[in-house]
């Protein structure tokens, strides 16, 4: 079965009804207590920009030519990097942060809807018609819709390929761009290794991550805690009352909720692992509570006493763990931890204390409403002052697909490219997920350049086909202008424009030259940032 689909991402309909856009959750038609607090948080946010700007770094790296006996403070490699001078449109900065790659079409949409309108449009993702993309995913990657019972018998290679390629396809071509940015974020937050959990991960991605990516954090955490895949990944399914396994109990506090400095002790880990005994898997991937392996003794976790129970309570034994999940999602450390991590993902590697406490207060006021937190983070004073971030390879690859708009018959070449780029999704083996740190990714630059070459030369009717006709239709100058529009949102830095013009004119204006110039655009410094 071959489905040739011209991705429609580049040709959006801009007739989004205004009432849909304005129908934001927490909007004026529901003056609930939640939204009251939410607006309070936004009001607080408006007080911040001065502080944020004061900390905004200068454009260039600091080169300190000091007297050698001076001792300079250590400059962290996460030093904030201000945006290119050419990136002067605040709306385009919002598009870069809210998507997996700026395109002409998204810039036009943002210009039409304005800051809040565009943000609301992306946040209310269920109102964005994504049938075309979901239709392709359903046809090309049918395993992603199957139950664990059926997936049990599917080939592991098929599962890996469909999961990886389906994720790339959605990230690159879905209209629900901000949603997929958050799918990526939560997939790392609740990271699992496909090599360990196998087919179980399909249901986790679908029913935990994609279902709750823009929902409420408590729902997301609880869905994860009831996921067979997570139980397998962190050995919870192997824990027994006589000798509990501490893996999940530790990571749910360290990585999923409180953070490593969130105020728990090794004793809390041990006690929570006893609480969670019995949380396990039955059959081919059904989460169950098994009272026969539950530790019914009394426990104290994070100062909360859970009195001794007895096996006669049966299924009610799960309530001990449910109670602790509530304690975790309502813990102030969780609000701060999630706020900090989301700020780092969406705004800046180094959020200020004010930013953290502001977003943490949104978490607490809204019961962990992810949309409300994003709305407060991506405000039009913080974001224009925020430093650039380096695209991680998955983001880089998705943005190259969004800019080249290939005809996609199969994404299999992209699957292996992710591995070459050092970002094989679903294969990070430790539970902390792929890093979101520039010092981790910056050195691996040669594979990005090699990817640019590979991507620009894709000309296959059976996998991917990059059509260069429009680039060759006019002059070399027009080709570079088109690259500016398609790859840089019309804000290509001067040094890159000069370099590309020089390159494209240094040889005959052939298809090969054009493809090489596209490869260099993908390889360029400015294409690595967002």
């Amino acid at each position, binding site marked *: 079965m071959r489905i040739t689909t011209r991705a429609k991402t580049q040709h959006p309909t801009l007739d989004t009804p205004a009432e849909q856009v304005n129908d934001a959750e927490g909007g004026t038609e529901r003056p609930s207590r939640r939204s009251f607090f939410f607006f309070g948080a936004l009001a607080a946010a408006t007080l911040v920009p001065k502080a944020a700007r004061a900390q905004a770094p200068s454009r260039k790296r600091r080169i300190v*030519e000091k007297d*050698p006996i001076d001792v300079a403070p250590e400059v962290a490699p996460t030093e904030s990097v201000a945006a290119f001078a050419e990136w002067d449109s605040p709306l385009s900065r919002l598009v870069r942060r809210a998507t997996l790659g700026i395109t002409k079409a998204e810039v036009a949409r943002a210009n039409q809807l304005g800051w809040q309108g565009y943000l609301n449009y992306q946040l209310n993702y269920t109102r964005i018609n994504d049938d075309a993309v979901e239709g392709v995913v359903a046809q090309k990657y049918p395993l992603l819709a199957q139950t664990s019972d059926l997936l049990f018998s599917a080939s592991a290679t098929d599962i890996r390929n469909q999961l990886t390629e389906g994720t790339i396809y959605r990230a690159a071509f879905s209209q629900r761009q901000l949603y997929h940015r958050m799918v990526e974020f939560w997939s790392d937050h609740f990271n699992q290794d496909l090599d360990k959990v196998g087919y179980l991960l399909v249901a986790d991605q679908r029913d935990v991550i994609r279902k709750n990516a823009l929902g409420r954090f408590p729902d997301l955490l609880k869905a994860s805690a009831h996921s067979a895949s997570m139980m397998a990944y962190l050995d919870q399914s192997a824990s027994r009352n006589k000798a509990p396994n501490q893996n999940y109990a530790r990571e749910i506090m360290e990585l999923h909720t409180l953070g*490593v400095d969130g105020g728990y002790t090794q004793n809390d880990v041990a006690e929570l692992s006893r609480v969670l005994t019995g949380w396990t898997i039955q059959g081919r991937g059904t989460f169950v509570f098994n009272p026969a392996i539950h530790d019914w003794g009394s426990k104290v976790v994070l100062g909360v006493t859970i009195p001794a129970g007895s096996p006669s309570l049966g299924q009610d034994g799960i309530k001990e763990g449910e109670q602790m999940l509530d304690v975790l999602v309502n813990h102030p450390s969780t609000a701060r931890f999630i706020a900090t991590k989301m700020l780092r993902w969406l705004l800046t590697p180094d959020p200020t204390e004010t930013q953290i406490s502001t977003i943490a207060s949104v978490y607490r006021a809204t019961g962990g409403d992810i949309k409300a937190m994003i709305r407060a983070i991506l405000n039009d004073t913080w974001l224009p002052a925020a430093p650039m971030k380096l695209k991680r390879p998955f983001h880089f690859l998705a943005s190259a697909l969004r800019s080249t708009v290939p005809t996609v018959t199969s994404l299999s070449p992209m699957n292996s490219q992710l591995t070459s780029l050092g970002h094989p999704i679903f294969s990070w083996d430790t539970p902390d997920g792929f890093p979101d740190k520039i010092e981790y990714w*910056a050195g691996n*630059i040669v594979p990005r350049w090699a990817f640019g070459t590979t991507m620009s030369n894709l000309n296959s009717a059976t996998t991917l086909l990059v059509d260069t006709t429009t680039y060759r239709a006019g002059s070399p100058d027009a080709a570079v202008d088109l690259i500016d529009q398609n790859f840089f949102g019309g804000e290509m830095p001067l*040094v890159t424009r000069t*370099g*590309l013009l020089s390159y494209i004119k240094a*040889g005959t204006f052939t298809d090969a030259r054009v493809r090489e110039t596209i*490869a260099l655009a993908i390889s360029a410094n400015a294409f690595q940032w967002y």
Partner: protein
Amino acid sequence: MDDQHDADCGCEEYNELSRRQFLTASAGISAAALFPAWLPKIVMSKNYSSTRDIIVSIFQRGGADGLSLCVPFADPNYYTSRSTIAIPRPDSSATTKGINLDGFFMFPQAMTGGAAGTGGLMPAFAAKDLLIVHATGQLNNSRSHFDAQRYMEVGKPVDPSLVTGWLGRHLASIPPLNPSAPLRALGVASGLQKTLVGAPKTLPIADPTNYTIGGSATTQPQRVAFLQGDYAAADEPLHSAALDATNTVSLLKSVNFTGYVPANGAVYPNSSFGRALRSVAVLIKANVGIEAAQVDIGGWDTHSAEDPIAGSMFRTMQDFSNSIAAFYADVIATGSAVTLVSVSEFGRNVRENGSQGTDHGRGTVMFAMGKGIAGGRVLTKNWPGLAHEVLADGQDLQVTVDYRDILAEIVQNRLGNPNLGVVFPTWNPTMLGVTR
């Protein structure tokens, strides 16, 4: 190099070396290539040694079970604590019995190439080139993989302001072995390991055998020229990475990886760890100025079904030992000035858990290998034992040797860098006779 880090400035983690000064010290090489601007400024060591070993640093990620890697079979508590995953004593009749090292410790067969006990790491041990340090690790008691790895790689616990790694600071504080080398160190990884952060002219290279930007060979110089121009004003750390990368592409193109024949008939396992050590061996023998390599091996987080006799821990240990054994035969036994050292962030509980695995613990083992290593023994300092009442937190082998004591002695005596206050800030190492 007028500055010197001396005892008087022990209160400070770094002294500063100006970029200009650094340039003077190594005339002819661009500043950015030598010393990325975003890195902390580190004083150069004055009394460094001009002859020194290349270091291959290994991180066993996940918290390696030292009690399976080097088993204290003479401690009866080992057998009572591990009812399903213990390895039989060397004097037992079991076919799966361990290989005696010194009457107290033994290797599992996974580490010796099988039951005969003559393969794997045994030749290096017998030649006194392999040292095993036991009940070692970090004094900090974090059981978080990520904190514990960070502390160990940084070389100092719980200091958020310290962002460089111990090996990075070593390289930053000693002039290059070969001043014209485009690449001083590599991490065989897709992202630079923390251990190497701060090292000048250092890149992560996941596969050194295939390090190219692809495309037409004819236009490649022009395309590289575009990249050099486009990244000339890039922000750090991308600027330095791009410059080092373009230079390293040319370097690695000149190295013949595919035609390489290891010495002594050594056979590297076709695992990611084995291939990584093979590539490092090729680079060492190519004599292109590589001074350090960081190589990782995962698979040590054995919470369930550990099975060091035939299961997952067996396979991980076998890959570890066979790969290092090949490197030993190929590189170290042939006399190359190379020291190899291996660490893990923590050990595992003495008592096995309910899933035939072990949870995060404290003390574990380290390995050091080289002609300059005083090997052929298991080094312990007041072996604490495995009796319940002496265990750390009632569950773990105590840490009696700080891992920095081992590394510091190697840095000073094998890597020729006396500047230990920079490499391991605020740590005053005890020399235990690790080196010859």
